[in-house]
């Protein structure tokens, strides 16, 4: 159980207020130039690569979604066992993730949107579409559960509480589709920047949140996701959100470290939310 205290809403509002005075600069987030980026380069000799020379991201990876943190204690025929669900792919923070961009704790909204974001967050159990089984969208869904990397396109597969989702990401240099309808996961194209797979996504609906704390956005949102392999074989995932309509500046979230995971990807059971009508107050916690 992960309860959110209401004072977090106040903290969020404060953070937004403090940071929103910065001027918006809609520049692409920079390619890593830190010593951490050098560490990534230094590790490439051990990296698994495809025939075309790029790091091979294919495979099953740990969950990037939020599930309960507790253990299950099972008693079977008198034998007691304890099982734990590892949430590290979702919630761990490792400041020294090699190759990671600098990140901020919270996005900076323009002043005219700060009150709305604080309201959405405070009333999350009433206002969050994800609470009611809707799609989390990009990048809120997090890292993919399975990656299928091919020469001209890469496919991301997800298991999410809202359902199974896929994203087909062309990597053959084509531009964004001109005829696609806006969607929760948007229209993606991918490219390699050295050993980092960079996915640029546009053409969003404006009814998803890009983060858990009421982080609404406009249909002008542009998301840059970066995925790269770490020396130990884990996958790193980091997302940057640009939205000149509502954000005072682009926001880069922390880098997640996702271990490989051989569990088969499975169909998500139907999502049938039945608690919203029973809520007696607006207490809430993180979704995902």
């Amino acid at each position, binding site marked *: 159980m992960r309860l959110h205290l209401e004072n977090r809403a106040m903290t969020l509002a404060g953070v937004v207020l403090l940071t929103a005075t910065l001027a918006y600069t809609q520049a692409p987030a920079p390619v890593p130039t830190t010593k951490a980026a050098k560490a990534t380069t230094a590790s490439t000799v051990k990296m698994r690569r495809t025939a075309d020379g790029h790091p091979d991201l294919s495979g099953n990876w740990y969950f990037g979604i939020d599930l309960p943190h507790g253990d299950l204690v099972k008693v079977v025929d008198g034998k007691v066992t304890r099982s734990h669900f590892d949430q590290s792919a979702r919630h761990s923070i490792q400041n020294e993730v090699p190759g990671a961009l600098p990140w901020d704790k919270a996005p900076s909204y323009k002043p005219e949107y700060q009150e709305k974001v604080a309201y959405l967050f405070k009333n999350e159990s009433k206002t969050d579409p994800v609470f009611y089984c809707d799609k989390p969208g990009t990048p809120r869904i997090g890292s993919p559960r399975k990656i299928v990397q091919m020469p001209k396109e890469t496919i991301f597969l997800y298991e999410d509480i809202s359902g199974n989702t896929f994203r087909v990401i062309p990597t053959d240099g084509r531009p964004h589709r001109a005829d696609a309808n806006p969607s929760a996961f948007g229209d993606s194209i991918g490219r390699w920047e050295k050993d980092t797979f960079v996915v640029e996504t546009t053409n969003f609906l404006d009814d998803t949140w890009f983060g858990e704390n009421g982080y609404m956005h406009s249909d002008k949102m542009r998301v840059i996701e970066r995925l790269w392999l770490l020396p130990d074989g884990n996958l790193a995932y980091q997302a940057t959100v640009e939205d000149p309509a509502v954000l005072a500046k682009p926001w880069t979230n922390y880098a997640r470290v996702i271990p490989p995971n051989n569990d088969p990807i499975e169909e998500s059971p*139907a999502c049938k939310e039945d608690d919203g009508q029973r809520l007696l107050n607006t207490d809430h916690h993180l979704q995902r």
Partner: protein
Amino acid sequence: MKHRIYFALLGVAMLVPGVALWAHHSPSAIFDMKKPITLTGVMTKVDWVNPHIVMFMDVKGADGAVVNWKFESNPPRWFTKVGVNRADFAAAVGQSVTVEIVAAIDGSKYGYLHKITFPNGNQFSLDESQTKEEIHP
């Protein structure tokens, strides 16, 4: 603060030893966390759905009347990851089981299941007592 300590979790654990549950909302927004109750009845149905698995149980009251209770618990993918499948619950359909739950504050026959004991004595229970700290931005 990169390390968020969930005092609320600790508080609940201290108030109600043994009770641990997760919900996609704050459990206290629905359930009376201070009054765990134990019920015995016949399991009638298991719904393996998100965001919570759901079970139904017929409970006979002191007056002999049968009341159908509905329980939710952790998400299906959580259960499969800790080695419990739908069939493990469904095997008890039609049989008498004992459950420990916290019930809805509004008095409806609705609860959050944190422990179930099957007819053969086998048990599943949720335990967050080991989860004292969560790292989060």
